């Protein structure tokens, strides 16, 4: 398959993720959609690595996975903290930083 097809799949996944972030209101699902976008970027990076025959893109993809794992950890910690304080789990309600 041509590399272009992989890039198209990556673009479609990215757009689904971006649309999900805009449409959904549950922060858990928004984190999942962020994962989708990061994975789309990973797919593009790996496709470019294949295109050039160069493994550095794969290293980049692995680092992106590490960063995504860190982001998920902190995000889920925030969701648990929100839940503990009996606040609504809804990004439209949680629009101020204080209390």
């Amino acid at each position: 398959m041509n590399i272009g097809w992989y890039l198209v799949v990556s673009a479609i996944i990215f757009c689904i993720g971006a649309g999900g972030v805009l449409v959904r209101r549950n922060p858990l699902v928004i984190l999942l959609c962020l994962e989708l976008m990061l994975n789309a970027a990973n797919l593009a990076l790996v496709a470019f690595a294949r295109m050039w025959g160069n493994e550095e893109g794969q290293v980049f993809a692995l680092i992106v996975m590490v960063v995504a794992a860190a982001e998920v950890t902190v995000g889920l910690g925030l969701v648990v903290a929100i839940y503990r304080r009996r606040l609504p789990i809804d990004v439209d309600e949680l629009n101020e930083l204080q209390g």
Partner: protein
Amino acid sequence: MSAVLFFIAAIGAITGAFGVVILRNPFYSVLALAFHLVSLAALFLLLRAEFVAAAQVIVYAGAVMVLYVFVVAYVGGGEQLESRGALRVLGPLFALVLAIELCIAMLGAGLKGVNSKGAPYAPGFGSPGSIGQLFLTKFLFPFEAASILLLVAAVGAVVLARRRRGLEPDEEFEREVSVPRPAWTGTMAEAGGLRLPVHAEERTVEGVPVATPGGDRPDQEGGW
């Protein structure tokens, strides 16, 4: 053969992505994301990125998804939340326009590399050995920075999610602590005679004196 596998994996990945956004229950969204990740790992394999595919399945579909499942189970969150007003229409529209634009940019690009099958395959491309060699030579600093980032994220998550006094209703904690128990059977402070139960004689369960949390022991001087 590779084209067939590509289309199966690509359709799986896109279906999983749609499932994440469309399914109402967050738990099903997590399952759809796991399906998406496995399909994406197949795409990585087709791109000769064996190590990345294995790490994807183990780290993402394994560890991160378990984290998600636990948080969804803890929080519940089966509520059906859909965005209100303009975003409900504009969000999908924006995504569609962005997708069309990106597809035009990628398929319409006259670049030779994009329209080829990629560089000739060299044995060992994307194997754990060569990736590890890159990580420990050329990309040593990002590698170490990633480990520090993971450490900071783990500590940060614990700090964020821990139980804080005064910020939240504390009835769970109090229920656990205030269960009646016989005196002098519980805390290290009692064993050391540091805290004496003040109202020990008032609280009894079936004649046995009950320790008051944080109380003091009357018949002993403080200290060891």
